[in-house]
């Protein structure tokens, strides 16, 4: 028997008995071993993932490569006729199968093209074409000969871990959710009812509005193996709002005579690990094609540590005094500093909803503000002295001024008042023409869009609002925050009655937050609880901003507790981990689902230590066989936490009277003794230059209720670089 054997340098495709009339095709490389039975069902009988030596299909259950279902009486006539072509080129190879049926009831032809290199990836291009022959007069057959339900059963029935958990990350509406499957394998690919899913709230909600689409990821945690399905192109509307249909179309489509439908084109990739690997692959794909030129402008550096913003109708009487006809900007910003830690940004909104009363457009209205443009500049100057950047609003829909170049008009105003940028009302992106007009007056000015830009828009717009219609419950992460951390997306929600979830989301994702309590004259005030939470959030964001704005960000670090979610912001000398506990209010001591003990693994140099700076609680690092883990000895008092890891720069020693803080080595900066007021905000009780060290006694300690004070070292750039929790006792 002649056995055709084609050998490329790294991919081996072997057809048995020969390539002209194969019955079995074996594809082998260093990572995969795939066996295809060339029969009327074109079945995948084996798919071995070699790095884990794991068979991905259920043993003894070959699955069709591509299936179609329809309503014919003579169903499953299959594709008994096949034309196989194997192409080899250097280190890659392609397997092309044209499969069709000699039954006239089945006019469909499968055009399957699978590409292989030496990796665990399959580049799949699958089309179905309708080659129905005219002249066939049977009515029922002709009707049935255009509709079908396509599927990729081999893909959707992967189960290397029978009985084990499966998780699927897929696009549900505009978000991505990571959901668990129950046990159960699809025994019969015709029946979708075997897909049992125990509907639960999503494990996590990840929002990212724009293409390119995030790949679908199927996880098998028990085997530490995952499969990524990156669907680049399809003519079929995959219903990804239903988990059952997230891996195959599974819906009736129409293919008219002589038409062709692209069912799938993309990459199917097997890997060791969980969805994070897919995320990294996807992030690299997006970033490699992204133009970061605008983000690299040196002048943008001063905005990178802006976190808290305020948006308001400028004629709110907290900002403008009608009895004296003056702005109250200093009063407002100073009060804000006490109340919530201070605003880094201020959106100066002056036109809507007044514009339209007469012929004055937004630019003419500037002249009629108190002091005109000079008055606005004075406002901006005063804000700058209080470390607040000011953005002007640009209303693109305001055309009553009939100006020939609104970009130029806006740029002139921006330059005259020395503002820091523009809020682009109703826009999702801007353009280079506007950018160029503004660059003449201020190349460092930022564009902030009200809507989220697509990828093209993100290249020009360096800041945007994350502004959904309603806030959805936690845990939610903003994928964009982790894919392009250079882009600053500020959380905002104008109509929520309770903005606690919004603030929590801003904290958990370490993004900016916009406070908006005067919505064009309609007031939606913040509660005291919200203000306290914002103050705590604001303190953390600023104290550890170097880590938070770093490029090394990790979403949803794997944890050992189902309801614990952790994001990592990994600076070079400080690492910040934001924590959210999903079940805090529902913890039951009968089932002991408390979040204590081992939380997640961490990779830290020796001599580093950790503190929960949100709850002012100690955290332990335990090391077992070289692997370090975070260990929480007690539950967090609330559903949020913030672990900060730093090298030990300061030394705290107990004395008879109290404690001494010393700084081994010459370190400039400030040592602070932090006490806590009733709202858990940090209050600096005592501070000194770092070189002088610090001594404090119990009497000087404003403790938290459980007896801790915080000592921290702040460098000359106002960044906190070491934090100590000292147990003072009562």
């Amino acid at each position, binding site marked *: 028997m002649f056995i055709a054997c084609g050998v490329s340098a790294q991919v081996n495709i072997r057809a048995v008995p020969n390539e002209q009339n194969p019955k079995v095709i074996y594809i082998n490389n260093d990572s995969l071993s795939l066996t295809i039975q060339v029969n009327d069902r074109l079945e995948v009988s084996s798919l071995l993932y070699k790095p884990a030596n794991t068979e991905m299909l259920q043993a003894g259950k070959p699955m069709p490569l591509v299936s179609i279902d329809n309503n014919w009486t003579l169903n499953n006539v299959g594709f008994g006729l096949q034309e196989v072509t194997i192409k080899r080129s250097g280190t890659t190879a392609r397997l092309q199968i044209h499969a069709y049926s000699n039954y006239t009831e089945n006019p469909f032809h499968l055009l399957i093209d699978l590409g292989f290199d030496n990796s665990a990836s399959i580049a799949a291009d699958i089309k179905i074409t309708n080659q129905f022959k005219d002249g066939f007069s049977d009515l029922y057959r002709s009707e049935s000969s255009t509709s079908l339900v396509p599927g990729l059963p081999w893909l959707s029935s992967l189960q290397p871990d029978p009985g084990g958990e499966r998780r699927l990350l897929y696009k549900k509406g505009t978000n991505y959710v990571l959901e668990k499957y129950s046990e159960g394998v699809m025994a019969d690919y015709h029946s979708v009812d075997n897909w049992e899913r125990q509907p639960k709230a999503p494990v996590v909600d990840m929002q990212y509005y724009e293409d390119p689409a995030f790949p679908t990821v199927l996880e098998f945690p028990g085997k530490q193996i995952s499969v990524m399905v990156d669907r680049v192109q399809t003519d079929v509307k995959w219903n990804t709002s239903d988990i059952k249909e997230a891996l195959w179309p599974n819906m009736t489509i129409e293919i008219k005579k002589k038409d062709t439908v692209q069912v799938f084109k993309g990459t199917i990739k097997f890997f060791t690990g969980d969805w994070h690997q897919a995320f990294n692959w996807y992030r690299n794909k997006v970033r490699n094609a992204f133009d970061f030129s605008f983000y690299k402008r040196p002048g943008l550096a001063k905005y990178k540590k802006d976190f808290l913003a305020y948006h308001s109708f400028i004629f709110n*009487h907290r900002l*403008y005094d009608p009895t004296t006809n003056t702005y109250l900007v200093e009063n407002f910003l100073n009060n804000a500093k006490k109340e919530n830690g201070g605003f880094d940004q201020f959106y100066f909104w002056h036109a809507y*909803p*007044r514009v339209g009363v*007469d012929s004055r457009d937004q630019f003419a209205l500037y002249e009629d503000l108190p002091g005109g443009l000079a008055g606005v500049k004075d406002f901006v100057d005063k804000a700058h002295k209080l470390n607040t950047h000011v953005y002007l609003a640009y209303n693109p829909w305001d*055309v009553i001024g009939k100006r020939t170049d609104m970009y130029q008009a806006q740029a002139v105003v921006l330059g005259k008042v020395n503002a820091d940028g523009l809020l682009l009302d109703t826009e999702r992106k801007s353009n280079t023409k506007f950018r160029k007009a503004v660059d003449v007056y201020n190349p460092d000015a930022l564009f902030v869009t009200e809507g989220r830009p697509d990828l093209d828009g993100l290249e020009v717009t360096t800041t945007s609002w994350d502004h959904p219609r309603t806030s959805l419950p936690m845990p939610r992460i903003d994928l964009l925050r982790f894919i392009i951390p250079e882009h600053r997306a500020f959380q905002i929600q104008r109509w929520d009655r309770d903005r606690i979830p919004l603030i929590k989301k801003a904290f958990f994702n370490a993004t900016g937050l916009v406070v908006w309590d005067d*919505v064009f*004259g*309609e007031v939606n005030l913040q509660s005291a609880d919200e203000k306290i939470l914002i103050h705590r959030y604001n303190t953390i964001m600023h104290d550890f901003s170097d880590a938070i704005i770093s490029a090394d960000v990790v979403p949803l670090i794997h944890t050992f507790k189902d309801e614990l979610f952790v994001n990592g912001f990994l600076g070079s000398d400080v690492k910040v981990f934001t924590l959210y506990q999903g079940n805090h209010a529902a913890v039951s001591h009968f089932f002991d689902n408390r979040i204590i003990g081992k939380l997640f693994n961490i990779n830290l140099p020796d001599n580093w230590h950790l503190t929960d700076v949100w709850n002012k609680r100690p955290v332990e690092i335990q090391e077992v066989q070289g692997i370090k883990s975070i260990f929480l000895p007690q539950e967090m008092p609330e559903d949020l936490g913030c672990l900060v890891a730093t090298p030990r720069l300061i030394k705290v020693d107990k004395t008879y009277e109290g404690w001494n803080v010393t700084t081994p080595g010459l370190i400039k900066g400030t040592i602070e003794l932090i006490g806590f007021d009733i709202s858990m905000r940090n209050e600096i009780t005592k501070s000194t230059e770092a070189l002088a060290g610090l001594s404090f006694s119990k009497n000087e300690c404003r403790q938290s209720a459980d007896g801790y004070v915080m000592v921290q070292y702040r460098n000359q750039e106002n960044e906190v670089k070491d934090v100590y929790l000292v147990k003072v006792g009562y």
Partner: protein
Amino acid sequence: MKQISFKFFKTMLTMAGICVASYVSAQQATSGMVLIKGTKFHYLQQNRWREGLELNQYKEGPLGDTYVEEYDVDLKDFYMDKTEVTNKQYKAFLDATSYKPTFDQNFLKHWKNGMYPKGQENYPVVYIDLDDAKAYAAWTGKQLPTEAEWQYAAQGNDGRLFPWGDRWDSTLANVGSSGAKAVGSYPKGASPFAVLDMTGNVAEMTDSFHDDGMHWFSYLRGGSWFQSYYSLWYTENGLLTNNQRLKFWWLNPGYNRSEAIGFRCVKR
């Protein structure tokens, strides 16, 4: 007896003179005004959704979602200016009182050297704000109309959408033009009480001031000559029906004084 008779006669003459003077004064006080007899007025006003609304009753209607305020109000007799206050009338006020606003940004912006533009003596006075209007009203012994008074004067009791009836007719009001016109330019657009220019020309201030603790606002009625276009985000100061109003925030004087806002007075 002759002396007594003369003295009596003189007294009678004096009293008659006072009566005549009072009558003349009263006539002068209501000169240019129309008497509107009191009534139980079913007041229904509405405005399209606009940010910054307070808690009005919400209703869905053929024009979309609206906020409606509806109740019966007992109106007593009152006089209303037949026309909007004119430049000439306002000049008389200034000449008599030397009134100067505390903050004069855009005050009578279109006047030059304390005089209105030539030929515009009978144009509605504009570029005045609420305080400027109230000052004039106080000098004349009048007041700004309440919204109910204004609407009743424009509408009567049959709920008509425009002073002349229910159908819009661009020949009966100054809306969507290039500027205000002399008062009374549209005599056929009169209301049931012969009040003129209740629709269009200039939007009219009313006695409806509110302070919500963070903003000042009141309501303008009647719409004006200026009609914005292209975007629904523009505030609606163009074509307004009798029962529609514009929420107008009192911002800074420079903003508040507008080419499209004027007023008329009532006397109760």
